[in-house]
């Protein structure tokens, strides 16, 4: 069975600084997808970034980028130039290829302060 571990329950960062959220996962699959989702307070969860395991290049979406280390089963999220609106719960998630079942980690609460 696949598991996703987020070892940082809470993180904080000053506005305009960079922060990295950690995620590790366990799977015997060779082909899969990894996601970071953001859940702002009292708002719906939205996709931040998506990585396909067969792609060696790390995904990037504007200020958000990932460090995908397949051998180490690590998938960290880097947020550059942090903004107050980045304050949210961040969930790392795994999806096996040819399925669409998401398996989530326990989340990291990120607080961006002025």
């Amino acid at each position, binding site marked *: 069975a696949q598991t*996703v571990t987020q070892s940082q329950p809470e993180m904080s960062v000053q506005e305009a600084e960079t922060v990295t959220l950690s995620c590790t996962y366990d799977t015997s699959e060779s082909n899969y*997808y990894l996601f970071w*989702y953001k859940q702002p307070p*009292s*708002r*719906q*969860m*939205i*996709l931040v970034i*998506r990585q*396909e395991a067969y792609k060696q290049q790390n995904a990037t979406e504007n200020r958000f980028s990932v460090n995908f280390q397949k051998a180490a089963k690590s998938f960290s999220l880097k947020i550059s130039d942090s903004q107050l609106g980045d304050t949210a719960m961040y*969930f790392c*998630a795994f*999806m096996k*290829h*040819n*399925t*669409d*079942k*998401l398996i*989530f*980690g*326990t*989340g990291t609460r990120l607080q961006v302060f002025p």
Partner: protein
Amino acid sequence: EAEVAQSPRYKITEKSQAVAFWCDPISGHATLYWYRQILGQGPELLVQFQDESVVDDSQLPKDRFSAERLKGVDSTLKIQPAELGDSAMYLCASSPPPGAGGARVGDTQYFGPGTRLTVL
């Protein structure tokens, strides 16, 4: 931009009562998911529909939970009777069918705002 709709947003009930949650996915999304998110944890899939058919309900406590999507559009999740341990956020999500508008397996799931259930 189209969104997944859920109602009610908040529900307080007493244990042993029945509760129902409603979800309206984004138009054209064939796949619909119900998740339960206990405070301090990540969402856990309860049931997945492909059109009107259940694809995966392996984590649904079938003695008290039921879900339906009769016309393959909106969906209802019911709990009867509710227990104290059912207090959680219930999230609905939908995703387009592979091939629709370039969608792929493993594509984005779009989440609704959730229904926060408190059982007293």
